């Protein structure tokens, strides 16, 4: 499990530059990111090396921020690796809200960040099925 920082951004020139600059100036490293957007606004989702500090810094800079629990799943870095995991999640009826890839890897595995509807259930099923995922501290240290 891991903490993702989500930031509300208006669809306006310079906003993404500003938020990444604020994080950069605070010495925070972005490890994974994705943006969901509409014509009016976007939601920037990031995994950083120090989520609590990032949360604090961003609030001080007047951003609307939230912390969300996500799972960093280790996906075999070979053809069909992700498909196999998604098929198993489907069999378990685990609803995925969204997912995105992590920059970098864990050994021979790729990392994919999943936001699921029921995170406890996902965790239990993954353990049962032997799907590997990273614990919080291991993820931030990568």
């Amino acid at each position, binding site marked *: 499990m891991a903490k*993702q920082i*989500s930031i*509300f*951004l*208006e669809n*306006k020139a310079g*906003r993404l530059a500003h938020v990444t600059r604020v994080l950069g100036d605070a010495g925070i490293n972005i490890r994974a990111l994705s943006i*969901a*957007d*509409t014509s*009016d*606004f976007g*939601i920037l*989702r990031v995994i950083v090396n120090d989520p609590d500090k990032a949360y604090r810094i961003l609030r001080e800079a*007047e*951003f*609307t*921020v*939230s912390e*969300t629990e996500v799972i960093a799943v280790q996906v075999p870095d070979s053809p069909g690796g992700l498909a196999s995991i998604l098929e198993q999640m489907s069999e378990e009826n685990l609803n995925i*809200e*969204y997912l995105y890839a992590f920059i970098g890897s864990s050994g021979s595995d790729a990392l994919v960040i999943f*936001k699921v509807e029921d995170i406890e259930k996902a965790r239990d099923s993954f353990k049962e099925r032997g799907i590997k995922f990273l614990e919080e501290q291991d993820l931030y240290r990568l």
Partner: protein
Amino acid sequence: MNYWDREKELMPREELEKLQLRRLKETVNRVYTFVPSYRAKMDELGVKPQDINCLADLKYLPFLTKKDFRDNYPFGLLAVPMRDVVRIQSSSGTTGKPTVALYTKNDIDNWAEMIARAMTSAGATRDSVIQVTWGYGLFTGGLGGHYGAEKLGAAVLPASGGNTKRQVTLMHDYGVTMLGCTPSYALVIYEELMKLGMDRSEFKLKSGIFGAEPWSENMRKEIESKWEIDAYDIYGMTELVGPGVAVDCAYKNGLHLAEDHFIAEIIDPDTGEVLPEGSHGELVITSLTKEAYPVIRYRTRDLTRINREQCDCGRTHARIEKILGRSDDMLIIRGVNVFPSMVESILLQIPGIEPVYQLIVERRNNLDRLEVQVEVSENVFSDEVKRLEELEGTITRELNSGLGIAVKVRLVEPSSIERSEGKAKRIIDKRNI
């Protein structure tokens, strides 16, 4: 020069003022006798009907405000038995209590006179075909314009608002000579005509009578040059009677107030003091002939100036300058009155929403557009797009139904709403009117 009621419109001022004083005394007597809330206000100031002996004594009477209308909704200010009421109209706003207008048969007749007079002043005759494109219904514009045009003896086309393509067809097929609508809609209809590839020469339109929203001299020029018509301003409001309180004449140098039906004063909006002749200030109107719902010193919140010099058109009735400003923060958008406080109370009813918002008004393709920017607080923020879209949808629905106009809602970052001295700037009006 055509006049509808030569005797009243050209009445020498001395005689007109005598008529006003007589009617004012009657009105004050009536409200003091029949309307408890007027009597209470007058008693509070220690003024009796017999204290009104000349027009200048008007200043001793208490003001009436929009709040009085709300507090007395719906029948509290009624000065006749309900059985004498033949019509009920009301303001377009649907949040809180609407502003009501009640009419006796005589009131309806006088109102039609005012509009027939206004239409004549704007060049209409009984040979005219008049398309009334103000909304029919509770709004005073549609039925007010309709009765006036009928009184005039013109042929009325009760088109009501909307369906612009049909408006163009009606105007074309029936040889419409006068259009009554909001000034911005006059331009929208023109654009539609261009879009349909029709030729202006196929239309018989000669003039338009435009009101229900503020518009500038520049807008007049634009309407006149595009349409090749004369564009006349008509002024009024639900609280007073509806449209027809004042109207341009052919000289378009101020709107003649129907002074046999109303008295106008100009006050300092901050102190309430009556200002010297010719000063700019807030227009205060007293009705002289209204039976059902008389208004004594109603604070219109509209800013203007009164000119009592005789006009070149021959009319003796005082003129008010085109109204461009307000002494409060009310916005008029497509004929609908919007107060920021209405937006605020609607937002407060939505769970989790903090009333940090900004209203942006723009005129695009001649139609006013209201954008409501709402700050996304952590209470309502979600990492999922669909949640935020649901929120946007909820706010839009609540505002649309609460304000009675379609608004565009935009979710914004907390830092984007400008604050000065801790207070957010609520309105950005980009219309340049």
